[in-house]
């Protein structure tokens, strides 16, 4: 479980996060949703320690991450897998080397064990046969899947996914959503997904936080999101014709 309490973050005079409180449960797919510029990415970077908070604290399984030195954070960071929006694959390494990399750095495994584990992960993201190619030689969607394979190869306790479906075709997006949900439930991972994609939220979101102007404007589950009564969330949820259609059908029942 990850607990965020009273987190503030500003860049110069521009305050981005205001007193954020959030709890991300283990074994659940936790979503952070919101419009562009609402502070989702900044909040995520604060949670994983890429940015330092100005105030408040972030606790991983009760341990205060914000109070730790860089060295003290290393054991927690080794339990984190992160899928970056752009993939962030190491372009000098092949697909297989990318996926193996966290194991090479931190796992006590021989080369064959690493290879087997990495190939298993590539199979889970439906990328068998691509292991010898370089990131520049595969499509953007495939890069995303490689990045997900790299994020999960160390069986992380905490999994962060920044826009996992952006740039993916709908069929692959469903595969990725299902994989995130299955991994979360299978390993009891604390999964945090940052997304604009309402399909994903409705399909796999267990615990949802809606950010608006740097504040948590609503939290709840995927059933509650369709009738939250929060104006900004309604605008966000029902931005598409499809969602308005669903709303109409629900109201017609």
């Amino acid at each position, binding site marked *: 479980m990850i607990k965020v309490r009273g987190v503030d973050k500003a860049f110069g005079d521009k305050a981005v996060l205001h007193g954020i409180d959030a709890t991300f449960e283990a074994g659940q797919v936790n979503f952070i949703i919101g419009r562009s510029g609402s502070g989702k990415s900044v909040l995520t*970077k604060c949670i*994983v*320690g*890429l940015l330092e908070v100005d105030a408040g604290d972030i606790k991983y399984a009760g341990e205060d991450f914000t109070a730790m030195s*860089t060295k003290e*954070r*290393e*054991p927690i*960071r*080794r339990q*984190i897998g*992160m899928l*970056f*929006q*752009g993939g*962030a*694959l*190491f*372009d000098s390494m092949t697909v297989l080397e990318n996926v193996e*990399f*966290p194991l*090479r*750095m*931190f796992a006590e495994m021989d080369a064959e064990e690493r290879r087997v584990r990495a190939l298993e992960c590539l199979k889970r993201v439906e990328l068998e046969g691509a292991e010898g190619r370089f990131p520049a030689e595969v499509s953007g969607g495939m890069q995303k899947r490689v990045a997900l394979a790299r994020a999960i190869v160390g069986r992380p306790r905490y999994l*962060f996914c920044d826009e996992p479906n952006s740039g993916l075709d709908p069929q692959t997006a469903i595969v990725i959503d299902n994989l995130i949900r299955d991994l979360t439930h299978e390993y009891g991972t604390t999964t945090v997904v940052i997304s604009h994609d309402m399909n994903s939220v409705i399909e796999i979101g267990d615990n949802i936080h809606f950010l608006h102007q740097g504040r948590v404007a609503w939290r709840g589950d995927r059933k509650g999101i369709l009738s939250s009564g929060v104006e900004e969330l309604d605008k966000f949820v029902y931005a598409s014709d499809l969602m308005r259609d669903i709303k109409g059908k629900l109201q017609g029942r």
Partner: protein
Amino acid sequence: MGLLFHIGRYFAFMAAALRRPQKGRVFAQSTLIELEAIGVQSLGIVALLSLFMGAVIAIQTAHQVGGWVPAYTIGFTVRQTMILEFAPTIIPVILSGKVGSNIASQIGTMQVTEQIDALEVMGVRSISHLVLPKLLAALVIFPFLVVIAMVLGIGAGAWICNAADLSSFADYEYGIQIDFKAFDVAYALIKTCVFALIIASVSAYHGYYTAGGAREVGRSSTKAVVYSVVLVMVANLVITQLLLT
């Protein structure tokens, strides 16, 4: 931002870069890759420039002193120029353009494409992981390149003296042996090592603190070369003053 800010951040960066590697085998492999990238891939340009410079110095010396000083002066001048200045200073300056810009753009691209964030989130100490192999590789390979440059330059001088009939081989051979001081080579290698550290670390520093996109990566690469060359020149003056006077 002020000069003091950069100096402070540079030393903090170097302290982070010189931390013990987290995984010895990964570090060793990375260092081998860097040795190839920094050293082997620079051999061609170093050899080409040294051959031409050695030959040109021999021709210029013959042109300027021909007839009124002994012919062995050509060999002596080529040797001294190659050992004292061309190989240990001009070759690193040229390498700062090739190797320095490569290091800055590689690390800069990793920064703007979140590859460095990915390393940090995994718990990898990104500065040490990326920079230490480059520092070590530069420190090991630059002296080799400089010695190769010295040998090729002096050899090219001998060849052109013979081919253009500037002096006899015996005179040239006598010239490159006369008043030889081994300390000159030591001085050259000491400053080469200092220049190697400057070029690798300054370039890595500019690459690591790149923010933005492709344009900023290009700017970092340019800054890396400019600052490296200026610092190499300043260090050259200081080391020469300290060691040769």
